[in-house]
């Protein structure tokens, strides 16, 4: 249970941090962390299918797409 607490806390902290960072690349990494933790939580909630999908799509591919997009635009928030 403590573990879940920790994960949720980490996830929310990641989300907040992602909104604060000026460097978008950092934000995206934080976002990937959030997705990853979410996928772990899915697993805890007895949803292995979803966990897999979230890990592969949410955490990996989304992050890749974000990084590509940031590379093609601007890395720092004004």
């Amino acid at each position, binding site marked *: 249970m403590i573990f879940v*607490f920790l994960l949720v806390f980490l996830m929310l902290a990641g*989300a907040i941090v992602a909104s604060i960072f000026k460097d978008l690349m950092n934000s995206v990494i934080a976002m990937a962390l959030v997705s990853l933790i979410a996928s772990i939580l899915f697993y805890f*909630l007895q949803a292995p299918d979803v966990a897999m*999908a979230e890990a592969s799509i949410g955490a990996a591919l989304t992050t890749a797409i974000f990084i590509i*997009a940031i590379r093609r635009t601007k890395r720092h*928030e004004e």
Partner: protein
Amino acid sequence: MNFLSNNIYYIGCFGLIFIGLYIVLTKKNLIKVIIGINFIDTGVNLFLITIGYIRGGTAPIFSRPGLNPERMVDPIPQALVLTTIVIGVSVLALALSLAIRLYHHYGTLNLRKIRELKW
């Protein structure tokens, strides 16, 4: 404490949704706003799964004999979430591609500067 432990998942998912909404409402960078949308998506997915969860349940897969169907978690939210994850990634990809093109035209991703269309 009991309240917290009962509702920790709810706190997690709605926390994520509200952080996402807050980002969308207040941040001015387009990429950040898209990140916020992603948070909302993830939060909603988590909420759906949380709703289907039974304390002490097992995944709804009869992978080995002897699993108690009574204790299986609800399969429907999982199916729904599979769908919504894909929908989310589609929207994100589209949004990011729009962001890339928008950057070509405006030279900025600041949403307060991208406002030629108004009134």
